[in-house]
Structures are given as C-alpha cells and as structure tokens.
C-alpha cells in the first residue's frame, strides 16, 4: 500500500463513523476498526522490506515554492511507531466500543480518534519537516477534541485547553526550529536534513534550532517543566488516555528526538539539555506518581516518569542508549496501554478510580487483576517482564554517563527513579487488588465482558512474551528501528534476560528493595506529602492563564475603550509625527517661486477667516453660533476660490455650503443646542497643543508647496491644450470633470447617490424603531412661534423658484464653456425646491412632487452610465465624448456634446440626492398630531373672498 494511502486512510475513514453510527454502535466500531486494520495491513506489507534495510518512499508536490511537499518515507523507526499507533489503535477502538456508554456520541468519538490516528501516522511517516509540522499540530488539535470529549465536565474542557496551550506552544516553537533547520540545510526534506549533521552542528543557529525543537518535543512528551498538562488530560475517556497518553501522542516528542537524533545528538548542548531534563522528569514523575490516589493520575505521572527515562536515554547521545530507548518505547507502550485500559475497567466497574476507596478487587475481578499484575510488575521492572529488560539496560547506560564530570549523580538519580517506580507500581497492585474485600465500593465490581478485557490482555501477553524472549519477539524490530535512529552502525547490545552480575543488577535490587520499603511506609509518607507545601502545577497554570487572559482583556478593553477622542488624537499625532519625521529626513525644496504681493482684499479675507476660525474653536459650545461661524468660513473660502481664479469652485463651495447648513439645522433641531463643558483644562491644553502642531505642520507644508515648483511639467498643460480641440469646451475645469476625468465624476455622483440612499435607509430604520414612536409622541415645544408657512415667504418663493430654475438652466448650459455645469445647476435647482419646502411645508410640497427622488437618482446614474456606454458602439472606451456644432435657424449656432448628456446625469443625481436627503431628514419632525397642511400658506385672506371676486 502506498505510504500516502496509509497516512490518508484514517483521515478518509474519519468520515465513516459519522455515517455508520446510524447502523448501530457495533457496526460503527467495526467500520472504524476496519479502517485502522486496513492501514495496519498496508503498513505490515512493507515490514519485510524495511527489515531488510530498505526505505520506502512516496513523493508528491504540494507547495514547491515553500519546499512543502507530501513526501513520506518509511524506515525502521517509522515502522515501529506506525505499527504501535495502528496496532494499539486497533485495540483501543475495540476497547472503546465497550467502554463508552450509550449516552456518549460514539460516532464523534471515533471520528476524532481516527483524525488523531491519521495525524500520528503522518508524523511518523513524514519525510518533509513542514509536512510533519502540519501533522504535529493536527495531533494537538485532534487531542483537544478527544480530551474535551466529555464536554459537560469542566475538567475535560480545562484539561483540553491546557493540553492545547502547552502542546500548541511547543508546536509553534517547533515550527521555528524546523524552519531554522531547513534554512541551515537548504531543504525541508528529512532525508536531506539527516545527511547534514556537520553542517547543522557547525551552524551558529544550531543552539536556537535545538532549543526550539526540544521545546516542541518536551511539551508534547510532558517533560519537566511542561509535564503538568498530562495528568489533567486524564479527564478524557480512558480509551483516549490509553491511546494518547501511553502509546502515541506523548511519544511523538520522543519520536522526533529519535528522528533527529543523528543530526542533533552528540553535542554537549544536547546532552545537558535532553539528558538532564529526562532525568529530572523521570525522578519527579515517579515521586509524584507514588502519592496519587487517582488510578489514572498515578499512571499519568508514571508515564511522565517513563517518558523522562526515554528522553534521558536519547539525551545520552550514545548509540547504545538510543537502542535502549527504542526498546523501552516498545515496552512502555505495551504495559502502559494495558494498565490504562485496566484502570478504565476498574473505573467502569467500580465507578471510582480512587485507590483509597478500592482494595480487595483480586477476588471480584480476577481477570483484570491478572492483567494489572503482569503489566504492573513490568512497570516496576521485575524480571520476566519486558519492563525489567529495558530498565536494566537503562541503569547500565546510566552508570556510564558522567554529568559535568560527576560519575555518580546520574546512576544515583536513575536508581532513585527506579525505586519510586517500583513503589508506585506495587502500590497500584497492592492497594487496588490485594487486601480485604470492602463493602463500600460505589458499584458492585465484577470483571467486564470479553471485548473489554481482551485488548489489555493481549498486551499483557506481549509483555510476558517480550519479557521472556526479547530477541525473538522484538529483536529485529529494535534493530531496524534503532538503526534508523542511530543512522549508522549499530552498537553491540544483546536483548536477553540475564546480563550477568553487574552494577545495574545491584541498582535494580536496591530499587526493588527500596521500593518495597517505601510502599510499606506509604501511609506516613503520604500524610507528609499532603502536608508539604509544593507548587501545584494546575494552580500555577490556572493563575498564569488567568493573569494572561485578564491582562489580555485589560489591555484590549483599555486600548479599545471606544473613546473616539483618544482614537482621533492618536491618529492626529501619528500623522503629525510621521509626516515631520519624513520631512526632516529629506531635503527640503528651495523656495523658487516669487511671492505674490498681498492686496487689501485678500488681507481682509484673511483677517476675517482667522477671526472666524478662532471664534469657532473658542465658542464651539454654542452650537448655533459655531454653525453660523462655519458658514462664514465657508463663505470666505468660496470667495477665496473666486479670488484665486477658481470660479467653478466658488460656485460649488457656496451652494454646497447652504445645503450643508440646512442639513445641520435640521439635525440641530433635535440635538442639544449647547455642548457641555467636559474636558479638563489640562486636556484642552493637550488638545490645543495637538491642534497647533497640526496647524503648523499643514501650514508649513502648504508654504513649502506654494514656494516650490513642479519637478516636471504638470499634466494639466495637456488639458489646457486639448480642452477646446479635444473636449469641445473652453471651461477647462468642466471639461476635465466631464471628459478628461469623467470617471472621477461618475464615482462622485454615485457617492452622492449612495449618501442619499444611506440617509433614507437610516431614517426609515430610526423612525421604524421605538425611537420613531417616541418622536411622534413628543410634546409640542411651547417655545415655537406661530405661522408655519408665512405668507410673504410663500409668495416670494413662487416668484423665485422659476427664476432659480432659469438660473439653473443657464448655469447648466454654459458649464462646458464657462463656469457652471451640471453639479452646480443641480444644487441650484435643489435649493429652489428646498425653498419651496421651507415655505409651504413638507407635505404640501411633496404632494406636488411628481417624480420620487429615488427615481431621479437612479435616472442620473443611468444617464451618466449610458452616455459612457454609448461610446462602446463607436468602438471607443467608456466615457469617450464627442461633440458637434448645430444650426437651428432662429437660435443660431450652438454646440451639443455627449459630455452634456453625462452632465445631465450629474445634474439629476445631485438634485435627487440632495432632495432625498433633506426630505428624509425633515421626516424626523413629523408629529402624531400634525395635520398635513391643505394650503400652501397659513394666512391667505383671499380664501375668504367670494369665488366671483377671485375670477374677476
């Protein structure tokens, strides 16, 4: 079977449980198991070749640019791990079928499990470190789902998050390390990396890479000080613990250390970091395990201890130690998985995992007892069981590992670890199964069904078989796997029960004896342990996470507290500072332009402007006054435009001004008329400082600009030259607007149209909400004068509206050649209509409005767009204009340009948008009691005249 298929099968198969669960739990389990079985068979097919020393490969390009490819390879190490993952996985699937209760969603469980399995297989088969990283992180994610599987349990959620946080962190460090590694070697392919030991170890980046990679490995393999997550992951269902936390996930770290052993190991850095960490972890885990009353917690810390042991072995960096490590990986997987499953059985049957509430189960659960006995003795390192063999070899290695010149510290600590290991293993057996039967078990215990005990039993058989005939059972596997780890000649070693009388034997005996003493003294020791103050990992982690989360929340909420004033001051300051820095980092242009003399007219304008501007800031709390002042500033600005040769701008500015003021007045009617004093003096000073800085910056930039010249001739020379011959108009500004840059104008009128639509939609939304009802019911302001629609105003409007329309037409028509155009004309017409609204009221005027403003806007956009599209038919791009001169007898010659049609669109859009906006806004004032005015004016004495008098 192709390697990719082996890796992909669990992923593909992950879809199955969800589908099969409808056919029943057994069918679901079988489907899942068959997937794993298929993958296992696929793997074993390759076993002979691998045993022969061949390396199976598979390559598929994925992201060649990054060097991320779907490259797999299978060597001895991969075979060992993949075999463990799939083999134990198969047992776990069967076990879980019986373990999970009817209430547990089994389909989900198997899906997660298969995802996890696939990720693990992926890690061990990957030939590309980036690909491996993907699988690596996937194990973290899928284990998150598995640990949190019982989502109703808070421990499950917390445990899952803790595991994810710790292993995720390691995974991210690992990414960094792998990238460095790939950077050193120039390839992310493992097979290439593994051949570059010298390059890697000589690199100055070796140490950072090593530390980052080890961070990944240590967190995953629960090495001190990252060991604390593993016990909390025990909130997961036992099959998960048995699988993830004995045989697979925690071994991923070991796998990676083994995988990279050829290129990373052998340096002092490696030794001191890896071996020391392993040693500490081994001892610490074993000590803590002894004092755990929860069966699974005990096993979890024992796992921590054994992982430390293997880590230490790998850390020694000698080939023989590596062989021992490989051997112990196999042994640990077998006895630990069996123990976890057995613990699950105990839990399942007695409804408790608390050793203090157990004891005497030997009689009630003989089968389980047997399995635990075998596996537990193996864990204790008792001869005839496989754990003994590898532990013996470990102690042997330890005697030859001086630590900073000190020859006894490693063996001593290793023995200590073994001693505690013996103690807790015996405690597990003795305190759970031996002793008198109790009558207060939470449930009545008995052995489970075959399906549940068969998997651990099978493992227990293996424990014994390997323990008795190691060379026969696992000799070739250990050889190939260690060969892959060492990446060269295998050292001399022998897998046999009896190695003769040596130091290791004495250490072993000491361990067993000491362990038994410890067990005998457990009660007082336990009491002392409980009394002793020691750092509680979970509490520290929780406190840390709480602090971090709290800090994150405080920082986030503090920084983004919704204070617009602060946001705006940060914005302004950032702009001023960045702009100044940019300016002073460059060379300022020399002032080359002559300064124009200051005439009296501009001087007056300037004084007025400065005074008005200053007053506006000073008196801004009086809103009406500040609005008036703003109108004055606008007026001065538009006169300034006129003065500085920009008549079009003056016209536009002034007509926009008035509409803006009307809008603001309409709004101000509902807003408070005064702005309260809220800022402290210090704050006002600060704001004033920012304002002055901004003013200085902008003023300075303006001056520099006005005194310098274009670096090259402006493109507007072309516009001036081509306006008449090319665009058919003499008002160059207008020709730019409707022709040269007509597309800008197209966007601009759409902005206006959208503005009106937004205003309309918002008005609808506000008036449709409770606010609208409240507005309608609000009391009439007693401070209102009478005379809604004054007679004089109405009459004046009647005369002025036609004249204003006339002016609008005039301004529109001349726009192409003289100041004016569709935009200004549109505003004038809109103002004329607004005048009508102001005079005779909304209802009366709106009743006489024949075309909805929505429609006018849309027609405007259409007119502009269709004019532009029209040029397609002439084979020209959008908005290409044409013009001609026509002669109609009484009226003389006149010019028609397609740009004018475009300008009609502009005109319509402006009229529609302005009117729709004002109309929407004026609807806010509608009150429930208001009567639509039937007359254009409130006072009309002619209404009393007899009809004849009117006709006369």
């Amino acid at each position, binding site marked *: 079977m192709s390697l990719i298929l082996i890796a992909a099968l669990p992923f593909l198969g992950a879809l199955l449980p969800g589908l099969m669960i409808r056919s029943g739990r057994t069918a679901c389990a079988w489907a899942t198991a068959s997937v794993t079985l298929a993958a296992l068979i696929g793997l074993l097919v390759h076993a002979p070749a691998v045993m022969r020393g061949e390396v199976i490969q598979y390559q598929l390009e994925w992201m060649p640019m990054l060097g991320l490819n779907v490259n797999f390879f299978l060597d001895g190490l991969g075979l060992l791990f993949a075999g463990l993952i799939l083999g134990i996985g198969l047992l776990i699937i069967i076990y879980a079928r019986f373990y999970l209760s009817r209430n547990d969603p089994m389909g989900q469980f198997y899906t997660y499990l298969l995802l996890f399995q696939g990720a693990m297989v992926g890690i061990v088969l990957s030939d590309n470190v980036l690909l491996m990283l993907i699988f690596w992180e996937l194990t973290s994610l899928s284990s998150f789902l598995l640990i949190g599987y019982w989502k109703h349990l808070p421990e499950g959620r917390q445990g899952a998050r803790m595991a994810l946080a710790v292993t995720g962190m390691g995974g991210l460090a690992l990414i960094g390390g792998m990238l460095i590694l790939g950077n050193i070697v120039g390839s992310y392919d493992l097979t290439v990396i593994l051949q570059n030991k010298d390059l890697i170890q000589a690199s100055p980046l070796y140490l950072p890479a090593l530390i980052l990679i080890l961070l990944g490995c240590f967190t995953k393999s629960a090495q001190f000080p990252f060991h604390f997550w593993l016990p909390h992951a025990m909130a997961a269902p036992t099959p998960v613990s048995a699988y993830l936390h004995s045989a697979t996930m925690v071994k991923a770290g070991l796998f990676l250390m083994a995988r990279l052993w050829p290129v990373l190991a052998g340096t002092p850095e490696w030794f001191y970091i890896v071996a020391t960490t392993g040693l500490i972890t081994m001892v610490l885990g074993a000590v803590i395990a002894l004092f755990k009353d929860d069966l699974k917690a005990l096993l979890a810390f024992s796992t921590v201890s054994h992982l430390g042991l293997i880590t230490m072995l790998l850390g020694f960096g000698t080939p023989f130690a590596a062989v021992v490590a490989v051997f112990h990986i196999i042994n640990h997987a077998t006895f630990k998985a069996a123990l976890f499953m057995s613990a699950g059985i105990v839990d399942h049957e007695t409804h408790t995992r608390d050793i203090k509430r157990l004891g005497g189960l030997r009689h009630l659960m003989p089968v389980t007892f047997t399995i635990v006995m075998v596996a537990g003795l193996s864990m204790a390192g008792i001869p005839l069981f496989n754990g003994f063999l590898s532990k013996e070899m470990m102690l042997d290695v330890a005697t030859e590992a001086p630590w900073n010149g000190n020859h006894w510290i490693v063996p001593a600590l290793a023995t200590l670890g073994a001693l505690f290991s013996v103690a807790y293993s015996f405690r597990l057996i003795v305190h759970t199964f031996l002793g008198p039967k109790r009558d207060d078990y939470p449930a009545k215990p008995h052995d489970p069904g075959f399906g549940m005990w068969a998997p651990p039993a099978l493992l227990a058989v293996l424990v014994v078989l390997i323990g008795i005939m190691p060379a026969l059972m696992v000799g070739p596997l250990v050889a190939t796997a260690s060969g892959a780890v060492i990446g060269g000649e295998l050292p001399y070693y022998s897998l046999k029960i009896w190695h003769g009388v040596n130091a290791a034997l004495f250490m072993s005996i000491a361990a067993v004896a000491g362990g038994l003493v410890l067990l005998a003294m457990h009660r007082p020791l336990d009491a002392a342990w409980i009394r002793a103050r020691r750092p509680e990992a979970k509490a520290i982690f929780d406190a840390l996470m709480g602090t971090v989360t709290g800090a994150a929340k405080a920082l*986030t909420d503090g920084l983004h507290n919704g204070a*617009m004033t602060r946001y705006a001051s940060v914005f302004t300051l950032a702009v001023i500072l960045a702009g100044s820095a940019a300016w002073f980092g460059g060379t300022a*242009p020399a002032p080359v332009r002559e300064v124009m003399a200051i005439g009296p007219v501009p001087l007056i304008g300037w004084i007025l402007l400065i005074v008005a501007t200053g007053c506006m800031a000073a008196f801004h709390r009086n809103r009406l006054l500040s609005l008036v002042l703003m109108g004055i500033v606008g007026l001065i600005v538009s006169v300034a435009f006129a003065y500085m040769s920009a008549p079009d701008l003056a016209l536009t500015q002034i007509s926009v001004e008035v509409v803006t003021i009307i809008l603001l007045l309409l709004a101000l009617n509902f807003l408070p008329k005064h702005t309260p004093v809220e800022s402290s003096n210090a704050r006002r000073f600060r704001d004033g400082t920012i304002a002055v800085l901004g003013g200085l910056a902008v003023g300075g930039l303006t001056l520099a600009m006005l005194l310098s010249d274009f670096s090259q001739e402006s493109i507007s020379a072309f*516009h001036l030259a081509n306006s008449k011959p090319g665009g*058919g108009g003499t008002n160059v500004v207008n020709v730019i607007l409707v022709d040269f840059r007509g597309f800008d104008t197209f966007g601009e009128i759409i902005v206006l*149209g*959208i503005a009106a639509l937004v205003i309309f939609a918002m008005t609808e939304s506000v008036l449709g909400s409770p606010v609208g009802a409240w507005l309608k019911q609000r009391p009439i302001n007693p401070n209102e004068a009478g005379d809604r629609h004054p007679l004089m105003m109405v009459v004046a409007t009647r005369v002025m509206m036609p004249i204003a329309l006339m002016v609008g037409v005039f301004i529109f028509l001349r726009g192409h050649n003289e100041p004016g155009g569709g935009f200004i004309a549109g505003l004038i017409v809109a103002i004329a209509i607004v005048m009508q609204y102001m005079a005779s009221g909304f209802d009366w005027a709106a009743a006489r409005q024949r075309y909805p403003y929505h429609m006018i*806007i849309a027609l405007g956009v*259409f007119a502009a767009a269709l004019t532009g599209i029209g040029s397609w038919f002439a084979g020209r791009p959008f908005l290409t204009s044409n013009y001609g001169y026509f002669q109609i007898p009484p009226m003389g010659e006149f010019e028609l340009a397609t740009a004018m049609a475009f300008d009609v669109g502009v005109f319509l859009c402006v009229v529609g948008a302005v009117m729709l906006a004002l109309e929407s806004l004026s609807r806010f004032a509608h009150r429930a009691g208001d009567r639509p005015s039937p007359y254009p004016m409130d006072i009309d004495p002619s209404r009393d005249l007899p009809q004849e008098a009117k006709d006369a």
Partner: protein
Amino acid sequence: MNHWIVAPILLPAVMAAFIILAARYQVALQRVFSVASTVALLGIAIGLLVKSMSGDIGVYELGNWPAPFGIVLVLDRLSATMVTLTAALAVAVVLYAIGSGWDKRGHHFHALFQFQLMGIFGAFLTGDAFNLFVFFEVLLIASYGLMIHGGGAVRLRAGVQYVLYNLLGSTLFLFALGTIYAVTGTLNMADLAQRVAELPADDTAMIRVAAILLLLVFAVKAALIPLHFWLPATYAEAPAPIAALFAVMTKIGAYAIIRMYTLVFGPDVAATADIVGPWLMPAAVVTLIIGMIGVLGASHMGRLAAFAAVGSMGTLLIAVALFTPQATTAALYYMIHSTLAGAALFLVVDMVRARRTAEDDIIASRPAIAQNGLIAAYFFAAAIAMAGMPPLSGFLGKLLVLDAVRAHDMVWVIWAAILVGSLIAVVGFARAGSMVFWKVETPPEGEASEAEPSPSAAALPFVATGGLMAGIVALTVFAGPVTAFLSDTSAQIFDRDAYIAAVLETPRAIEAESLPHEGTKK
C-alpha cells in the same frame, strides 16, 4: 477594445441603479437582481483572471484619453486576483444575507451592496491615484450604509465612530494627493512612478511626506496600529454579512500599499526607500500581537472575530513590509486566505447570535443552540484557519510568511511575534469555543432541553459559510498552483518597467496624439 475591464465597475453601478428604480419595494426582486449581478461579476472576474494569467497588462483608457492625462484602468495579475477574490466573497455574502434574512432588516441593502462592490472593484482596477481616492470614497460611503443596516443604538454609535474615523482618513488622503501633485504634477500611478524616480536628490522632503501620508491612509484601511482603532467596534457591531464582506475591506489597504510602494515608492527609489519598510514592519508586528491578544481578551465573539481580523492584517503586513517578490507571494496567499477565513468566522458568529435567545454573542455559557454540533464544527474550522493552525491554508500562509522573513534583520522578533501570536490566538479560540459550544447551560428543571426552536433552519447560511470553507480547503489543496500563480503575480508587481510601459506606451497613445476627439463642424 476589451470593455470587460470596466465591467466589474459598471455592472454593479447600473444594477444598483436598476434596483433602486425598478425594485425599490420588492425584496424578492432585489434579491434576484443582486444575486444575478454578483454571480455575473464572479464570472467576469474569473474571465479577467484567466486573461491576466497570460502576463499581459491590460490597460483601459477611459474617455479614450491616453495616460497620464486621462484615467486608466489596469488589469494585471494582482488586480485580477483581488477582483476575483472579492467577487467570490461577495457571492457567499449575498447568499448568507438572503438566507439569514439580514437583507430585510432595513432598506436598500442590495443597492448598497452592489455599490459597495463597485467601489471595491474600482479601487482594485484603477491606475490613477486620485481615482483611487474616489473609489475609496464610493466603497466607504456604501460601507457606512451597510454598517448601520438594521439600525439600533449601539450600531449607530459605533457607525458614527467608523464614519468619523474614515473621514479623517479621507482628509489625509487628500493631503497626500495634494502633496504628490504639487511635487510631480501628475496623478497617474505609472507616470508617478517615472517622475518620482527622476526626482532630483535635493528635493525629497515633500515626496517623502507624501509617501508617508499615503502610507498612513492605507494603514487606516488596513487597520495597522495605531490607526486600527476604527475596526473592533465596527466589525463587531456591523451586520454579520457586512462584517464578512469587510474582510476584504482591510485588504484594500494592503493592496494599495503593495501597489503604491512597489510601483511608485518602490524599495529602489532613493528618496523614499528608508521610510516605508522600516515604519511598516514594526507596526505590523505590533498589530499582529495586539490583534491576537484581542482574540484572547475578547468577551464577545464579534470582537473576537474582529481582533482576529486585526491580527491577520498584522501577519499580512509583515509580509508586505518586506517588499520582496517572495514575501509578496506569501502576502498574497495569506491575503486570500485571511479574507475567506475572516469572513467565514463572522458568519459563524452570526449563526450563533441568531440562535441565541437574547441574540447576544457574549463568550459565556448559554442554553444549547440549535445545530450546535454543526456550527461548532464550522467554528472549529474557521478558528483553525484564522489562528493559522494546520492543516488549513492559514498554516501554509503563515509558513510562507515565516519562510519569507528569514533574511530580515528582525527575523527573530517577527518569528516570535507570529508564533507567539498564533499561540495566543489558539488559546483564545479554544477558550471561546469551549465556552460557547461545550459549556452549555442546562435549562432549569422541568423545562424542555431544546427550549429554543431553530430560528432559521434555512440551508442557505450553511451553504454560504460552507462555500467559504470550501474555498479555504481548495486554497490548501491547490496551494502549489496557487502559489505558482501568485509568484508570477509578485514577479509582475516588481517589474515596474513593464507596468509603466503598458500604461504609458500602449498602442492607443499613438492614436491619441492625432486626437480622436476632433470636433467636427456640421
């Protein structure tokens, strides 16, 4: 004459006008037109993308005026990619809006939506700096309307901030454009590129100011710290489909930075070389960190998604700030990814919100919602994508960025920021997800467990969100071809001369000299 280039701008404009004109009061008709238009736009966009693959740069001279005197639209691989991405996102968003009924909660949703698309497409396609401003305004004003669609006090207040902040941005844009014009006398980007490169060495201060101001303008759009303050409240309070569409809004800022600071103020332009990269990189790093911290510190899912967007912009801008072809490839890949993922996340958040009794999105235990499992799965996938965890494209994008950054001086800081940022995000997402989907409040005794009937069993929201997820998966699976294309795109981006030549020396320019506009006396 290839008029297709202008189609992505014209079609939505005309369609929006048509909706206003003919279907102002008929939501069903609006939906039909809106979906038809959006799907057609996707088709056009794909067509343009295919066209751009040839490597030729398409130039469309509006009004038949040659660059730099008229406005031109430019279709290169970059703009085609952005247009296609937006169009694809738009299809999902419009379907979600319809399926969830969001479009009915106020007036003119579809018209504004089409106008919004017009603005975005215009911004991507234009080759003129001032026209870019105009399209920024089009897309902004449409976004204002969409942001407050549905109304409500909180949304309106957040909307006011959003508008005010962007008005500042627009003002700044004009200052920048004024400065640019004052120095160079041109507005066309290609022409600008030429003229800026030829500036005398003793006249750099003004153009430097212009360059930095313009960068700040785009930084506002791209939510770069310290100009990102508009984003969290806006995204969190905007209607979900709009927040999803906004996923591409921040990218417009990134796009503009890429465009302007490779073409005009490129790394090899002496006058401005030292101001953009060095400013951008640290800001991007801080943005990333602040965003990810926000993910951890958020108390509402909407804000969580918003800060995830900030964080993703940080990652993206880190890649952008390197201004190398390789990094730009990474940036583009990450940009596509984060757009899809960010949008999906907002939609998932909305699904939760819609199903909760109080319609809130607080990250706390609440009674079980309908379709909890499926939505949780969606959230899990979107979270993985946003946090940049394997196996989705976020991880690949992150790897690309990490890989691209290797030669940079700040490599350690950047790597640490990206990796630590991911960790914080992972923890934050895990916290939020487990609180919202796992820690389900059990209803009081005696009440039915499924108290809330499913508010909207409509499949369309799931289809729309699923479509985005499918996009992410496709981006992951086809990472090879996609990065190959994006690599070509980056190469084209950094080939300034080709761009300039295409815009300023098209065959049309020769014809233009003889002035096709001659007025004929009749």
